[in-house]
C-alpha cells in the first residue's frame, strides 16, 4: 500500500463524511422558510375581520372583506396529480377540479346539489327541434384582460370535437349527436343537433355544458397539444395559474378581477399526497388546511382533534349486482327479491360507515333524477328472505374491490346465516371492472356513478339498456326491449315534464320490482376535513370543489 493511495483513500472518506455531515446539519437546522410562510399567513389572516363575504346564499357576493384583498394561503392535500393542464385531454374528476378553479364553464352544478345553473351562460333558447341559441354573459374578462366572446365558446367545442385533438371527452353527455356549433353574434352561439334534445333544461345535460371549461381562443390556437398540456392556463376563473410540479403540487393565485368578485384567499396550493394516513397526519400537523377524500376510518380521529368536516351525500350507488342470466344462482327473480329483503343495510351503514352513507331502497340513488327516498319495496325481513335463500346452496363468490371489502364480508356473513355458501373475493380495480363488464360473475359488489344527476342518460344506458350488450358491457345481463322503449319514448323523447316524470317513475319501479338486477345498498358521503380556520367551503355531491373563490382562511 503506497502513501499516495492511502492519502487518496483518506480523501474519499473525508468527502463522504462531509456529505453525511452536511445533510445532517441541513436537516437539523430550522426550516426558516416554513416558519416564514406560517408567520406571513397568520399575520395576513389576522387582518381579516370578517368572513361574511363567503356567503352561501348568493353566488355574486364577493368572498373578500370590504376594502381588503384576498388573504392567506389555502393548502389542500389530496390524492391526485392533475396529469395535464389541458382540460380536454383527461377523464378525471380531480383534473377537472383543478381546471375549473381557473376556468369557468357555461353551466355548473352549484354545491351541494346536482342541479345545473348558468355560470358563463346567460340563457339557452330553443329555436326549433334541433337548434338552440346560447347567450353568454357580457363583459367577462379572461386572465389576460381579453373579453370572453362567442368566438371563444365556438373554438372550445370545435377543438374538443376535432379528430386531431383526440380528446377522450369528445363524446360525453350526448355530444356525439351534435351536428355543430356556430357563432351568431358576439355573445350568442347556436348549437345544432342531429336528433331532438328536448327542452333547454334537458338539452343542456346532453350538451354536457357542465363538463367543458371555456378556453381562450387566441392562446390555445397558438399552442400544440404538448404545449397545452403544461403551459400556463389562460381562462375565465377565480384563480390564475402559478406553477405545476407534477406529482408534487399545483399552485394558483387569486384573480382579483374575477367577474363574481375577488377570491377570499391569495393562493391555493394543491399537494399530491396519495396515502390517506399521511394526508391525515399532514392536516393534524397543520401543514395542510384541508384534505380530501376522507374515509370513515379517520372521521372520529379528525373530529376529536377539532377538525371541521364537510359531509355531502355522494353520487355513486353501491349495490350488489346479481347475474340474471340462465345458469346463475340468481336467475330466479324470487331469489333476487329475497336477497333484497335479506340484507340489513342500516346495520352496515351504521357499523362500517359510521353513518356516513345513506341506505338505498331502489335503483335510483339519493339526489338523482327520479329518486324517491321513501320508495323501498323491500324492507328488511330476514325471515321471509331465509325461506327462499336457504334453498340456494351452491358456492357463490362475491367479487368486491378492496375499498368495500368490509361491507362485502358483512353481507357474505349475513347470507351464510341463511344457509348460503357465499365467500367474498377481493379483486383489484382493473380486474373487477373487466369481470363486471364481461358479466362473468354470479354476485358482485359494484358501483354506479351519477355525477351528472340524470337517470335516463348514461346511468341507464350503461347498465340497463339492451344496446350496451353490443359493446361488451354485459354486467348483470339484464335486457328488456319494452323497458328501453318506455325509456326512449316516454322519458328521453317526452317534452311534458309531468308525463316524463311519471314514465321515469315507472321505469324505476319496473327495474326495482320486476327485473331486480341489484340489491341497492347505499350511497357514501363525500367527506372533506379541514382546519377550524377554513371558512366558506361547500362540498359538492359529485365530489367537485366548486366555488373555492368563496373560501377564506381565518385565524
Amino acid at each position, binding site marked *: 500500500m503506497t502513501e499516495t493511495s492511502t492519502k487518496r483513500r483518506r480523501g474519499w472518506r473525508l468527502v463522504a463524511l462531509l*456529505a*453525511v455531515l*452536511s*445533510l445532517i446539519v*441541513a*436537516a437539523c437546522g430550522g*426550516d426558516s*422558510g*416554513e416558519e*416564514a*410562510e406560517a408567520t406571513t399567513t397568520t399575520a395576513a389572516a389576522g387582518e381579516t375581520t370578517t368572513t361574511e363575504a363567503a356567503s352561501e346564499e348568493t353566488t355574486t357576493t364577493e368572498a373578500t372583506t370590504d376594502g381588503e384583498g384576498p388573504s392567506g394561503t389555502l*393548502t389542500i392535500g389530496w390524492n391526485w396529480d392533475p*396529469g*395535464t*393542464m389541458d382540460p380536454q*385531454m*383527461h*377523464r378525471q374528476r380531480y383534473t377537472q377540479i383543478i381546471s375549473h378553479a381557473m376556468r369557468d364553464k357555461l353551466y355548473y352544478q352549484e354545491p351541494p346539489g346536482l342541479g345545473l345553473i348558468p355560470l358563463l351562460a346567460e340563457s339557452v333558447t330553443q329555436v326549433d327541434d334541433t337548434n338552440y341559441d346560447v347567450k353568454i354573459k357580457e363583459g367577462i374578462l379572461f386572465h389576460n384582460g381579453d373579453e370572453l366572446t362567442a368566438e371563444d365558446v365556438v373554438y372550445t367545442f370545435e377543438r374538443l370535437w376535432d379528430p386531431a385533438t*383526440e380528446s*377522450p371527452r369528445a*363524446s*360525453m353527455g*350526448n355530444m*356525439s*349527436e351534435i351536428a355543430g356549433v356556430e357563432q351568431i353574434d358576439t355573445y350568442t352561439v347556436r348549437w345544432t343537433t342531429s336528433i331532438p334534445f328536448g327542452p333547454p333544461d334537458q338539452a343542456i345535460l346532453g350538451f354536457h355544458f357542465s363538463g367543458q371549461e371555456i378556453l381562450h381562443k387566441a392562446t390555445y390556437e397558438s399552442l400544440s397539444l404538448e404545449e397545452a398540456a403544461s403551459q400556463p392556463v389562460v381562462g375565465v376563473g377565480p384563480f390564475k395559474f402559478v*406553477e405545476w*410540479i*407534477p*406529482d*408534487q*403540487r399545483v*399552485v394558483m393565485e387569486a384573480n382579483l378581477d374575477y367577474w363574481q368578485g375577488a377570491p377570499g384567499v391569495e393562493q391555493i396550493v394543491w*399537494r*399530491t*399526497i*396519495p*396515502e390517506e*394516513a*399521511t394526508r391525515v*397526519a*399532514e392536516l*393534524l*400537523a*397543520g401543514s395542510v388546511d384541508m384534505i380530501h377524500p376522507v374515509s370513515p376510518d379517520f372521521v372520529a380521529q379528525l373530529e376529536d382533534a377539532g377538525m371541521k368536516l364537510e359531509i355531502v351525500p355522494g353520487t355513486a350507488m353501491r349495490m350488489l349486482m346479481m347475474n340474471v342470466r340462465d345458469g346463475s344462482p340468481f336467475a330466479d327473480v324470487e331469489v333476487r327479491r329475497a336477497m333484497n329483503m335479506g340484507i340489513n343495510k342500516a346495520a352496515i351503514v351504521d357499523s362500517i360507515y359510521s353513518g356516513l352513507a345513506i341506505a338505498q331502497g331502489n335503483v335510483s340513488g339519493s339526489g338523482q333524477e327520479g329518486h324517491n327516498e321513501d320508495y323501498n319495496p323491500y324492507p328488511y325481513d330476514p325471515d321471509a328472505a331465509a325461506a327462499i335463500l336457504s334453498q340456494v346452496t351452491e358456492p357463490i363468490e362475491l367479487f368486491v374491490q378492496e375499498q368495500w371489502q368490509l361491507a362485502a364480508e358483512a353481507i357474505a356473513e349475513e347470507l351464510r346465516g341463511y344457509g348460503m355458501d357465499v365467500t367474498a373475493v377481493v379483486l383489484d380495480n*382493473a*380486474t373487477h*371492472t*373487466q*369481470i363486471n363488464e364481461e358479466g362473468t360473475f354470479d354476485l358482485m359488489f359494484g*358501483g*354506479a*356513478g351519477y*355525477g351528472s344527476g340524470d337517470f335516463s*342518460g*348514461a346511468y341507464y*344506458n*350503461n347498465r340497463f339498456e339492451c344496446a*350496451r350488450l353490443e*359493446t361488451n*358491457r354485459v354486467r348483470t345481463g339484464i335486457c328488456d326491449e319494452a323497458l328501453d322503449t318506455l325509456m326512449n319514448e316516454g322519458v328521453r323523447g317526452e317534452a311534458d315534464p309531468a308525463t316524463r316524470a311519471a314514465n321515469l317513475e315507472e321505469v324505476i319501479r319496473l327495474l326495482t320490482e320486476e327485473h331486480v338486477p341489484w340489491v341497492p345498498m347505499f350511497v357514501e358521503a363525500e367527506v372533506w376535513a379541514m382546519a377550524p380556520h377554513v371558512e366558506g367551503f361547500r362540498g359538492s355531491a359529485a365530489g367537485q370543489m366548486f366555488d373555492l373563490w368563496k373560501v377564506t382562511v381565518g385565524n
Partner: protein
Amino acid sequence: MAKYIVQRLGQTLIVVLGVTVIVFFILRVMPGDPVQLMFGDGDDANLGEARERYEQLLGLDQPLPVQYVRFLGEITTGDFGNSIVRGGEPVSAMIERALPLTIELAIVALLIALAIAIPVAILSALKQNTIWDRGGTAIALVGVSLPSFWQGIMLILFFAVYIPILPVSGVIDSSMSVERITGMAFTDAVLTGNWEAARSVARHLVLPAITLGTAVAAQFVRVLRSSLLEVKHQDFIDAFRARGLRERTIVRHMLHNALPTTAVIVGLRIGALLSGTIVIETVFAYPGMGNLLIQAINARDFPVVQGVVVLLTVMVIFSNLVADVIHGWLDPRIKISTKGTA
C-alpha cells in the same frame, strides 16, 4: 476484466429483452385495460363506441405482437412512448423527473444504513456474545422484521405530528422551488447555493431515508458482523495482537478484509433499496420512481409501467455488475474469470 465486463453487458441485453417480454405480456394478460379504467362508467351516452374509438387512437386494438414490436422499437431509441392516462405526456419525461429523486433518496438511505450498520457491526463483532452483541443482533432483527410501511407511518406520527420537528411528506416546502440542474432536489439546491431550499429538502428527506435506511442497515449489520467475526479469528489478527498493534489499527485491518464482502452485499442490495422506495415513496408522497410505478400500475398505464420496470431492471443489473467489479478491485485475491467463475 474488460472482456468480463463486455460479456456481462451481453448477458444484460438478453435479460432486458426477457424482461420486456414478461412485463409487456403480463400487463396485457392482467384483467383491465387503461381505456376501460379511464372511461369507467362515464357520462357518455354512447360509452362503448367512445371507448372503442379511443382504443383505436392509442393503437390498443392492434394485435399484441404488433404492439410489442412497436414497444421494442421505441425503447431501442430511448423513447418509452407516451402515458395513456396523463394527457399523453412522454414516459421519458416522467422518468427524467422521478429517477433523480429516487436516486437521491436511495443514496441518502444507503449512507444512513452504513452509518448505522458499521458501528453496530463492529461493536457486535468485537464484543461477541456480550450484551452489546446481543443488543446489536436484536436491533438488526427488529430492523429486518418491521414493515417499512408501518415504520414510516409511526415515524410520521412521532416526529411530524406529536413532536412536530420534521415535515410529514413531500420533497420540499410548498412555498419553495429549486432550479433544476440534476433533478436531485438536495443536490440542485446545494449547487445553486439555495441553502434555505437545501435545508427544506434535507428535512423532507430525513424520515423517508431513515425508514428506507434502517431496513437495509439491519441486513448490512448481519453481513458485516459475520464477515468481521470471520476475519477476527484469522491468524494474521492474532499476529497483529502479538506484535502489540493498537486495537484501533487491528479493527481497521479487520474492516479492510471484511469490506469486499460488504461491498458486494451493498451492490446487491441496490435492488432492495429501489424496491423499498415503492412503498416508502407512497407513504411519504415522494414523487420518485416507486410512486410513479404504483400509480401507473393502478391505472394500467402500460407505457409508464413498461418504461419504469425496464429501467429499474437495467439499474439493478448494472449495480450488480459494478458490485462484482468493485469486489475484484477491493480484494486482489479475487481474479475475475471470463469462464464464469470468480
